[in-house]
Each structure stands twice: as C-alpha cells, then as structure tokens.
C-alpha cells in the first residue's frame, strides 16, 4: 500500500518536473536509461607476489573461492538538466556511490546506458595520492591524475596549499602525508580535488571533512564549483546539507530509485521512512 502511494507521487513529480524543465527550455546533461550495475567480488584481494606467499594463498583459498555478484543498482532511470543540483539520499549500501561512479563512466554498466554531456568527474583524488610522499608532491600528482596540466597546477599550487591551511601550523607541506593528522590529510585531499573546474560535478560526502572552520570554507568552495559546473550531484547522509545545496533529490533504496522530486517532498518522505 505504502509503496503504491509512493509510486504515484513519484510519477506525478516526474511529470511536473519534466514539464517545468521543458518550459524553461532546459538542456539535459545526464540521462540514465534503465541502468544496472553489478559488482563481481572475488573471495580475497590480490596479495603480494613473492612465491611463498602466493603458494600459501593458493592453499588457503580453497574453501572461499568463487565469485559473488552484487547487484548494486537495479534499473535506475532519470534525466538531469543543466543548472540542477541533485542530491542522492538513501541508507548505507543503497547504491548511491555506485550510481555516481557509473555516471562518471568509471564503473561499466551491466545493462542500460548513461548518456552524459562532456566528462562528468567525481570530486575526490584520494586514490591517486600516496602517503609516503610529501604534501607538495601529492598536490602535483593529484592534479595530474585529475587531468590538469603542469602549468595549471603551478598556477593553482599556492591557492591549494593556502586553502587547505596545512601550512598554518608550520611547514607541513614538505613532510610526507603519513605524518599528517587525519583531519589535515582530509583537508589537503579536499583542497586538491576542489582545485579543478568541472562540467558535471559529483561530490561524495566530501563536505564532512576537517574542523568547523574548514567545513565552512569547503561549503563555500562547493557553492563556487556549483556555479561553474553545469550540473552537480551530491551524495550525503546529512539532510541539512542536501536541503542547503540541492533543488532536486533522488532517493535510492536497495539499488532502486524509490523517489525522484523536489528536495522538500523527497526528504519529508525519506525522514518518515527512516523514522525521524
């Protein structure tokens, strides 16, 4: 019963919005068409390559071998338009981050397609950075990994360091990142990631890093990025930050799109669902 009702509101919302957008002559930037994403999980992760450890691994692996499939996103369809800021909500493991990665073209679709205008990018360079290198080298490495040129990085370098505030307490940027506190490292990562301009920008819970002062600064930077970017996607568990930044919300549950509509309506239903 409840589901039926939800479905109906969902449909009405969608029609309303499509028409509204058509009125304004909105241009689609991201179209997801019956998208399915399936992860294949092997028993264990790849290990080091020395012969002895490889041998022991083969012997130990026996019982847990085999591949498990995780159907993370099931048939999601939506159209995002230029100038929209779209929030993605849902409980843990509902497929939000997976959906973002699929939009960015980083995870191949099992079925269905995602069409995008230009190259959507995920805000985040964590994976490219190396803890054993100095902050300085990580700024350069992270910038290059995001596709910036050496000149662009040189031009932005000081800005990135100043924004992160790493050097406020002494010359930390020339120390290896493993010596940073977790807050400092998170600030530097965000600063590097936010240094680039994007067409379609996707932010995965990046707002919750650092101390209060830094959070304010990063929220301001996100708003700036939003202005420059065509479309913004934001994944967050913080309903307030979704309300502050987004005008439309997609609610995912168990990999399915449960609701799609204006922020207030969806968040209200979501809060009812989570029992807040």
């Amino acid at each position, binding site marked *: 019963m409840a589901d039926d009702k939800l479905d109906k509101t969902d449909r009405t919302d969608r029609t309303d919005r499509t028409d509204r957008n058509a009125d304004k002559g909105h241009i689609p930037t991201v179209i997801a068409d019956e998208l399915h994403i399936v992860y294949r999980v092997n028993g264990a992760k790849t290990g080091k390559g020395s012969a002895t450890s490889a041998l022991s691994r083969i012997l130990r692996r026996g019982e847990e071998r085999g591949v498990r499939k995780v159907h993370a996103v099931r048939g999601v369809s939506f159209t995002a338009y230029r100038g929209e800021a779209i929030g993605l909500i849902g409980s843990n493991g509902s497929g939000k981050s997976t959906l973002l990665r699929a939009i960015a073209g980083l995870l191949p679709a099992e079925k269905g397609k995602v069409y995008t205008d230009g190259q959507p990018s995920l805000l985040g360079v964590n*994976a490219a950075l190396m803890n054993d290198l100095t902050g300085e080298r990580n700024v350069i490495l992270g910038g290059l990994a995001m596709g910036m040129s050496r000149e662009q990085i040189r031009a932005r370098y000081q800005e990135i360091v100043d924004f992160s505030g790493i050097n406020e307490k002494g010359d930390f940027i020339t120390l290896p990142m493993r010596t940073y506190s977790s807050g400092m490292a998170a600030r530097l990562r965000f600063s590097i990631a936010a240094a680039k301009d994007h067409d379609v920008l996707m932010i995965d819970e990046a707002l919750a890093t650092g101390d209060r002062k830094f959070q304010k600064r990063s929220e301001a930077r996100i708003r700036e990025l939003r202005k420059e970017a065509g479309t913004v996607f934001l994944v967050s568990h913080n309903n307030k930050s979704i309300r502050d930044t987004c005008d439309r919300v997609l609610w995912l549950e168990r990999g399915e799109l449960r609701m799609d509509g204006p922020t207030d309506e969806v968040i209200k239903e979501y809060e009812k669902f989570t029992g807040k």
Partner: protein
Amino acid sequence: MTAPPSPDDGLSPAELAAKYGLSVSGARPGLFEYVRQLWGRRHFILAFSQAKLTAQYSQAKLGQLWQVATPLLNALVYFLIFGLILKADRGMEREVYIPFLVTGVFVFTFTQSSVMAGVRAISGNLGLVRALHFPRASLPISFSLQQLQQLLFSMIVLFVVAVGFGSYPKLSWLLILPVLALQFLFNTGLALIMARLGSKTPDLAQLMPFVMRTWMYASGVMFSIPVMLKEHPAWIADILQWNPAAIYMDLMRFALIDGYGWENLPPKAWLVAAGWAVLVAAGGFVYFWKAEERYGRG
C-alpha cells in the same frame, strides 16, 4: 498533468541523448583518439612512476640508497650460489662470467618485475580506476616506466661490476641504449597484456612468480645456453636464445662485456630483438585498449 506539452515528450532516452549530443559515459574511444588521450596524460604517467619509485623506500633509514643497494645484494646472492657454490660458469673465465651473471640477473629482473607490476596494474589499483578518469593504459605503462628507472639504478652497479672485472667503457657501450629501448617496449607490451588478464583474473598475481622463475631458468640467466647445449644441434640453442628474455640479455652482455663477442649471439639477434619489441608492444597495446571500458568492474 495539464502542463503544456514539451517538444522532448515521447522521446526515448536514446533519442533525447542524440538530440542534445550526449555521449555514452565510459564508452571506449577509437584507437587513435586513445593514443592522443594517452599522450595528453604523459606527465601523469611519468609523475606516477617516479612517485611509486620514491615511495618504495621512503620509510627505510637509508632511503633512496636502497635503489642501488637492492640490486647489488641481489647480484651478490646469485654470485654466491651460482658462481661459488654451483660453479655454473662451465669454463667461462671469471672476468667474463661475473659481469655475464650480473647482467643476466638485472636484465631479467627488469622483464620479471614489469610483468608482475603489470598483473596488478589494474586489479591492485581499483580505487584509482574507480575514482578518476584517465586512459587505463597509463597504469601499466607507468609501472613499466618505474621498472625502467629501477633498472637505470641497477646499471650503476652493473657498470661498477663490469669495470671491476676488466671491461672498460668503450664505444660498444652505446649499444646499451637501443637494447634498453627495445626491451622497454617489449616489457610495456607484456605489462599491458598482463594488466588486462590480471584485471579479469587477479589470481595470476599468485601464479606468475612460478611462471617467471621457470622462464628465468630457461633463458640462460646464470649459464650460457650454447655452451650448455653444445652436444645438441645448434638450432635448439638458437631457438632458446631467440626467446625475448634471452635475446635482450645477450645483446646487453655483448654491448658491455669484453670477451663476449658475436659468436655468443644467435643469428639475426638485432632483428629478432626489434621484432619482439614491436610485435609485443603493438599487440599488447591493442589488446589492452579492446577492454578499456570494462576495467574497474572488479
């Protein structure tokens, strides 16, 4: 429900995408476009390989000194076992055998570690593949570039060993450069192939050490193939010596060591070396590119 109809109404998602010129996200670019993208990422490829190389020893007290110390210790171990205990020199003079052995170990290690790094280039960097957009070939190429830089450090040790055993710098040492270039091409191609295989079957990382060790013993790293097989027809030795691991080793020895002349090389050595390089590099690149859109599925 009564809003005015939009011109986009009734269009399927695919038609809508076509109308506004949207492209499929994560689709594989054409081969030339791919090469162009890869060239655009050359600074990243180089920076990533250097970063990996530096990060390797950054926690050690001696730091980057290990770049040279590791190959030196390696050479010592092999010398101890094959030179002193097993006496694998088979009548080769000591002045030739020691640099012969060390060259073999270093040159083979270059191929071996490129293959091992290649297997894990995608499967071991899924976080990176799933977070950022770049031509995936950047990773295996970057890893074999890292191994090339590692080999350049080993070459310092090798030069010292060569001079220590009476092979002084001469014009033929310049031949080291084309040998390195060809072997690098070959290794990169191999790393690309292994990267695609390893992304589908990460278990290869467990299997490869055994395969590589077998290859090492079959390629004459610590003994001379023609001397070992002198009772058999010459073509058997030729075939073994034409195998890519052996051919680069032999050419490097020929360039570096006095008293290791043409007579130790199989016929058409340079042609075979170049052939392997071009074939495996081009083939590996195309093979890797064919699965570009599928990397990252895990």
